[in-house]
């Protein structure tokens, strides 16, 4: 027991740490070694200061932690009471002025108000967000004219009936592929995932994941990170129609479209066939008009060609006519009648043979004499 003197000797004035140095070092070690984390415990010694900051302890059976939650973090929360079971998301640190190890609380959830569910939800949501699965840019457009619409839902519920009715009325050209799944209970998560898996390999244009409303526990499968990731990984656009408007599930968040009800989902997935028919009518009119315009060029050309043909032919005809007249005049000049007119006559015998020589005209030969205005009979004397 003669050792204390040695210890004092070893600790020189320069070697001793100040309180502040130890506190700062301890704080650095704590902050480096314990990143922000979720802690569960019971609230004790709760006090709200005028500044709005909350001071309290979290404890369990064997330990307790000092906590502070600043006003800017707690201003929307209901005030917790001692004895309440809570989850806090907090940064472990060191309050150097008091030498206290403490949690700086950023979020506080009470398990009494579905806090447990909310905690799991927030954790999964953060994980999805971290992987970019909640980005608005990921949302795909729904197909305009879906051929195959898959539905994951409970096989005998009202959800399927509603979807079938709407699709049947609006777009019966589609084929509805129903993949039944348990949407509630312990097996729901696995069941929905396996249904999604099945659809992944089918040629489907759009998928509706549907479930009627229920309590937050009932909807839980659709708040599972596993289901949300499976939905996000589907190769076709997904419409989620889960619960009612007030309950947003993770599945809603990762889906390409969130519909308030299964009927609304079916409506969003389909065009209205009456409108498409009207559209067809418009296309028909455009086709006819376009053809009329396209053929107008040809008609015009045809007309022009016709005109040219006509004028060309007319020209030809006139030319021919002129030539004919000229020939006519020529012929006329050569005509025997014209010769007769000048005082010549033609003599023919009874056979019509023209008598041109003296030898053909012996004394007593009868003949007919053609003069310019008629014929007379004669005899050679």
């Amino acid at each position: 027991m003669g050792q204390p003197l040695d210890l004092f000797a070893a600790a020189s004035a320069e070697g001793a740490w100040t309180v502040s140095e130890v506190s700062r070092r301890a704080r650095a070690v704590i902050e480096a070694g314990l990143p922000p984390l979720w802690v569960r415990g019971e609230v004790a010694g709760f006090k709200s200061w005028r500044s709005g900051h909350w001071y309290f302890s979290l404890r369990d059976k064997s330990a307790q932690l000092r906590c502070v939650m600043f006003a800017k973090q707690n201003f929307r929360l209901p005030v917790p009471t001692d004895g309440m079971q809570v989850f806090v998301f907090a940064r472990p640190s060191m309050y150097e002025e008091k030498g206290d190890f403490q949690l700086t609380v950023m979020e506080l959830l009470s398990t009494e108000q579905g806090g447990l569910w909310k905690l799991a939800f927030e954790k999964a949501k953060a994980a999805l967000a971290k992987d970019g699965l909640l980005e608005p840019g990921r949302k795909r457009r729904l197909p305009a004219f879906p051929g195959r619409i898959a539905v994951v839902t409970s096989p005998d519920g009202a959800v399927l009936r509603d979807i079938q009715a709407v699709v049947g009325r609006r777009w019966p050209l589609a084929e509805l592929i129903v993949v039944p799944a348990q949407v509630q209970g312990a097996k729901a998560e696995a069941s929905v995932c396996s249904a999604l898996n099945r659809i992944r390999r089918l040629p489907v244009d759009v998928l509706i994941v549907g479930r009627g409303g229920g309590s937050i526990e009932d909807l839980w499968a659709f708040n599972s990170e596993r289901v949300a990731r499976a939905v996000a990984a589907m190769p076709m656009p997904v419409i989620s129609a889960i619960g009612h408007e007030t309950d947003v599930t993770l599945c809603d968040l990762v889906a390409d479209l969130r519909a308030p009800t299964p009927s609304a989902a079916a409506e969003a997935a389909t065009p209205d066939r009456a409108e498409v028919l009207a559209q067809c009518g418009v296309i028909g009119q455009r086709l006819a008009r376009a053809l009329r315009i396209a053929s107008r060029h040809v008609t015009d050309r045809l007309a022009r060609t016709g005109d040219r043909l006509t004028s060309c032919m007319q020209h030809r005809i006139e030319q021919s006519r002129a030539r004919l007249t000229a020939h006519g005049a020529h012929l006329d000049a050569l005509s025997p009648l014209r010769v007769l007119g000048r005082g010549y006559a033609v003599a023919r015998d009874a056979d019509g043979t023209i008598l041109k020589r003296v030898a053909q005209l012996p004394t007593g030969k009868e003949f007919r004499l053609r003069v310019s205005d008629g014929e007379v009979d004669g005899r050679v004397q």
Partner: protein
Amino acid sequence: MAEFSKQLERLEAIVRRLESEDLDLDEALKLFEEGIERLRVAREQLQQAELKVKKVLEIESPS
């Protein structure tokens, strides 16, 4: 029946081509005929269709 959207896309393309291009009559007529035929088929599909519902589990394991 994703074919319906292809059908409609083709129809739109035909109309646009017919409207915009200086086609010779033969080609225009061919396009027009194709358009009318596709339109007829599309209308028929729209008017006659009846929703088909398949349950995948039943198809894959009829038990």
